[in-house]
């Protein structure tokens, strides 16, 4: 049995609770890191993390990139998107193809 969770600031992730997703509000990067690692140990298969939180702990997130589970997905927080998720997609393309063929130089902010 696997679980789904969301990490982020309290205001962004409040709504997810109503869907039955477990929410973990965090204040700073250190707390986020600890929460994330706890979640991985506790059998969370899908972890959404707001970009505002994710941007400070990218090394930790990248560590799980090559594993099948957990799936860690950045989502925009309520302050708008930082483009972190799209950058991730772009990076994946660049690694596989060797060049960015998907965005064709279009600005990914």
């Amino acid at each position, binding site marked *: *049995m*696997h*679980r*789904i969770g969301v990490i982020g600031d309290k*205001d*962004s992730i*409040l*709504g*997810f*609770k*109503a*869907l*039955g*997703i477990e929410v973990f509000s965090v204040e700073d990067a250190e707390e986020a890191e600890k929460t994330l690692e706890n979640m991985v140990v506790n059998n969370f*298969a*899908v972890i*959404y993390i707001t970009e505002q939180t994710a941007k400070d702990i990218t090394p930790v997130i990248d560590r799980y*990139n*090559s594993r*099948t*589970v957990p*799936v860690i*997905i950045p*989502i*925009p*927080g*309520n302050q*708008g*998107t930082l483009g972190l*998720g*799209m950058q*991730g*997609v772009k990076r*994946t*393309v660049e*690694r*596989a*193809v060797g060049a960015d063929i*998907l*965005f064709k130089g279009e600005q990914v902010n």
Partner: protein
Amino acid sequence: MSIMNVNPTRMELTRLRKRLNVARRGHKLLKDKRDELMKKFLELVRKNKELREKVEMMLMESYAGLLNTRSVMPSEALEEALMFPKQTLSLDVTFSNIMSVDVPVLNFNTGDTAEGGIYPYGLASTSGELDISIDMLWEVFPHLLELARIEKSAQLLSLEIEKTRRRVNALEYVLIPQLTDTIKYITMKLDESERSNLTRLMKIKDMMLEQVHASKMSESEV
């Protein structure tokens, strides 16, 4: 090019020829694998991009809705309303295999949606805006899960492509040239020794003939 450190013997030659065959076959197979992976990957990553754009837009809408809610409801009441979710969610993860890459497949079960919808609160004490934003979030959610699956698959595939490409290149530009060069070196060396053997034999034959000739001459003199 570099030549392997081997003895130029016939046995070594057959061994290397066998290795070259295997390397060529492996190279072909890996190249096919790389191409197929790439095809699958491009499909996935296109979908990934579209889906992410869609999900991000929908999420922003729902955040905007929640912000509206906040403006008409005290935030304590809002938190209280959402404190105990009625909806239960269970996730089942299985794995499927794309070109020898294990990718997760996420099946989620939304327990029983009881009457009154998914709202974990009474409708009397909350505003209508909250219902709308929760509805929106509920709508995004399947897309969000699909995004998780596709994005992870794309990530894993890209890692595998990188690995496969490296192997293909190592075979194509290092191992195979090295093997062909070594094989050439051994054949040349063997040919050379054969030639030297031949000349030696011819020389010996000459010497022996001369000897026989000399002994015959001395016999006839007697």
